[in-house]
């Protein structure tokens, strides 16, 4: 009898264990040994939606062959994910970049056409040109279709917005992210090449490499205020500085909705380029390495993410649903700058070799820059701080184009031009040597350094041919007190020079650096000895 009781207890324990073995929503520490794991890499704009949906999926205790399914989500930008997948440093079962374009890039760059088993859209968003509503209206929006050719004409027109009765808005300016990492930028570059060739399909490598196409790209580039790491940089600055910052920038429709949800004084509206645009289809890509059970598990997840509840949840974030049974609703409305009946036409998605050629052509033709590196060499920078900064500066210089012009100015008790402005083809070695020879001592004549930089940039200021920028690395207040912020305001007023201050270290003075950033409509970038290399790498994508 005792034997029977023990048996019953064991059985009860076993059954109880069976009923709880699929609890996975408590995080990775609770993953059962027999779990089928689904490593899932997705692009950042889907993070809020997917994090919530993954939790909801786990709450259903999903199983395959009696084994619990555990989804392990990782957010990673599309371009970075494709690089890591190619290198084998990450191995997702499911990959969801912003657009299928990245799968084509991965296939092309990795030389493997069979890297994925399937590719289906999860949620959608078109690429649009976001523009301040009054500016769009001045161009004829919403009654007149507007396209890239209209923007090029405006960039080339010396009257700028004056041609449309608004000289107070100055020249047309726009922002552009890096197609090496940004899906929106990749789509934008393709759209620019299509506009250059007046084609809407069949873009070829020869089209991309044609001198006329590259000239078109350079002309559009004349209106670029500066490049950026991602679209967030621009939307943040547009929130902060309003219409005086830039006139427009290409974004995904969801970014525009997010901006308008914040209730800005002046809203943005979506311009769906009349030449056509691209959809970002946020694909659910099943990778070829997935086991049979992982494939079954991923299928369950896909079905869950496509159900009406999941798709409606995605819509609240501004995505368009990928299930035909879910009708578009708010915020996909005019109230948030959206026209649900657009886009009317698309540009044909080119094959992988054209994508890679376009990316390379952009890198070779992006707007050149004049950059003055203004580096704090006061006593407080000594030790590891200056050594790490030297490494970061070296990386920054190495990432610039040969035709970019760069100068190096240091400041301590006084400011000194160490290497005058010159093309990197001529002075790269000199700059790198000068950076390594930097010594630290004395006070912080930061404003003097900026005024000296202003002189270096004198030649090209406001020509529009180049981005004019100063990268200011400092860890403290101006203690030399030989010039003031008022001097900076006077000397830089109404120039197109952007100053990017890097507040280096915990004791950096955020107030004076923020004053400078606000004045030139940029942002203060926080840096420390631990991440200054990354800061410089990201900053190099602005030029």
């Amino acid at each position: 009898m005792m034997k029977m009781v023990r048996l019953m207890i064991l059985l009860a324990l076993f059954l109880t264990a069976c009923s709880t073995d699929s609890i996975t929503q408590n995080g990775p520490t609770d993953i059962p040994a027999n779990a089928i794991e689904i490593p899932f890499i997705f692009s950042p704009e889907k993070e809020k939606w997917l994090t919530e949906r993954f939790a909801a999926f786990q709450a259903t205790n999903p199983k395959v062959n009696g084994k619990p399914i555990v989804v392990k989500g990782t957010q990673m930008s599309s371009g970075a994910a494709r690089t890591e997948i190619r290198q084998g440093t990450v191995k997702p079962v499911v990959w969801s970049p912003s657009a299928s374009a990245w799968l084509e890039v991965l296939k092309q760059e990795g030389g493997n056409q069979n890297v994925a088993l399937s590719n289906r859209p999860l949620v959608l968003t078109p690429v649009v040109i976001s523009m301040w509503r009054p500016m769009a209206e001045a161009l004829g929006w919403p009654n007149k279709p507007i396209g890239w050719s209209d923007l090029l004409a405006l960039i080339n027109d010396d009257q700028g917005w004056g041609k449309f009765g608004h000289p107070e808005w100055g020249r047309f300016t726009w922002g552009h992210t890096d197609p090496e990492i940004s899906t929106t930028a990749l789509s934008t570059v393709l759209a620019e090449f299509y506009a250059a060739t007046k084609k809407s399909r069949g873009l070829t490598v020869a089209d991309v490499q044609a001198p006329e196409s590259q000239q078109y790209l350079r002309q559009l580039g004349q209106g670029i205020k500066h490049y950026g790491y991602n679209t967030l940089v621009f939307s943040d600055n547009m929130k902060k500085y309003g219409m005086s910052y830039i006139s427009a920038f290409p974004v995904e429709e969801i970014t525009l909705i997010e901006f308008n949800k914040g209730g800005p004084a002046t809203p943005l509206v979506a311009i769906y380029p009349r030449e056509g645009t691209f959809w970002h289809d946020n694909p659910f890509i099943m990778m070829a390495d997935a086991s049979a059970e992982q494939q079954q598990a991923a299928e369950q997840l896909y079905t869950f993410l496509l159900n009406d509840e999941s798709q409606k949840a995605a819509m609240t974030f501004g995505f368009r649903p990928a299930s035909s049974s879910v009708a578009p609703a708010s915020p996909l409305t005019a109230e948030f700058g959206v026209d649900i009946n657009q886009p009317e036409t698309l540009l044909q998605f080119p094959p992988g070799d054209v994508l890679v050629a376009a990316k390379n052509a952009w890198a070779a033709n992006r707007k050149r820059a004049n950059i003055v590196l203004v580096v704090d060499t006061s006593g407080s920078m000594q030790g590891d701080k200056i050594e790490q900064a030297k490494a970061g500066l070296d990386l920054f210089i190495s990432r610039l184009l040969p035709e970019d012009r760069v100068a190096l100015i240091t400041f301590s008790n006084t400011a000194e031009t160490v290497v005058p402005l010159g093309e990197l083809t001529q002075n790269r070695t000199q700059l790198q040597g000068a950076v390594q020879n930097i010594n630290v001592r004395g006070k912080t004549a930061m404003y003097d350094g900026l005024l000296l930089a202003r002189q270096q940039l004198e030649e090209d200021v406001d020509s529009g041919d180049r981005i004019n920028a100063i990268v200011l690395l400092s860890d403290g207040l101006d203690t030399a007190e030989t010039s003031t912020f008022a001097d900076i305001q006077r000397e830089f007023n109404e120039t197109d020079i952007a100053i990017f201050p890097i507040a280096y270290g915990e004791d950096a003075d955020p107030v004076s650096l923020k004053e400078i950033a606000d004045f030139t409509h940029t942002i203060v970038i926080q840096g420390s000895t631990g991440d200054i290399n990354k800061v410089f790498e990201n900053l190099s994508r602005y030029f």
Partner: protein
Amino acid sequence: MRLVRTAIPIGYMVVVLGTALFALLTGSRPYAPFSVLPAPAAITLPVVYSTEQEAWLNAAVAAFEASGSSVKGAPIDVVLQGRDAQAARRSIADGSLQPAVWIPSSTAATELLRTDLEARGEQPLIATSGVDVPRSIVQSPIVVIMWEDRAAALQASGKNVWRLLHDANVQVEGWATYGHPQWGFFKWGHTPPNAADDGLLSQLLMAQEVRGGDAPLQVADVTGEAFRTWQRELETGATVVAGSGVLVNDMLIFGPSRFDTAVTYENLAIQFLPDAVRRGRRLQILYPPLNTMSDHPFVVLQGDWVSDEQRAAARVFRDFLLSQAQQQRAVEFGLRPAQAGIALDGAASPFMRNTAAGVRLDPGPLTALPGVDVLNALIDNGR
């Protein structure tokens, strides 16, 4: 024998008491021991079907399970797996897919499988006589769906739908030729002929249009320069989408920016009409001048992996699908019944509700399937 007689009650008691204890510990519903005798194990019936039937089959399987259908008291557990017909055909032929039942879109797929296996001297999987001879369970012709405004712009010429598609594709200026430059170039979608029957059958119908007449096609008709040129021209604006249901879903979610038109089954077109309206747009359904009926044969595969119980269960399931109730239900999903005496023109019929969208009771003249050599040539063309 004694051992068996003793062991069974003890084992049974362990399970019953164990379950009762579990119920006590977990607070679940009280268990009523000894009130139920062990039921015969369910017969699992794996069914591979082409995806355009999905909505109807899901509903039919739910009704089938609710009906309590069984074989010698054993309940039947139908496990559905959607797979495009030609893709399934290849997997069945190479042994990587082994369902008990296969319901492709068309006899084209079963004929290709039969001749494939014959050519390789392998076991025939499709019965040619007896109770398991494939039977059509529902039917659906091929149609072209087009956004209403696009259809209005194109149809002014009065040409048949294949000519409309071809003409629109070859216009260098795209929709500007038709007075709508804002619509860009002409874009249409189809499924791959080597994977899905609607992709294959639409190619067949286009070849028939190019060749002319209604006599069965010959290999030379589809490999000749006239049709190959037509195909190349038509493909300039084409997007190939794997999965018949996926294609129509994509057409709706992306709207006319990606697909002005698509070739699909009539039943899928009918099913998606309300979704299009909910999205603020209307679709028109256009019928080719000569059509072919996808007959959806119910195939009980004669493979050695299919047990006698599964064969018996398959027949029960097939008869259920052919019942008047399920045939009538199929009509609600836009499918045409395979059984006589089922009305298409009832008040609730989607065929009657959607005449304004171009749905017709009469699909027009039909052509017979050509020989397998022609089908294979069409598949090769599409590679």
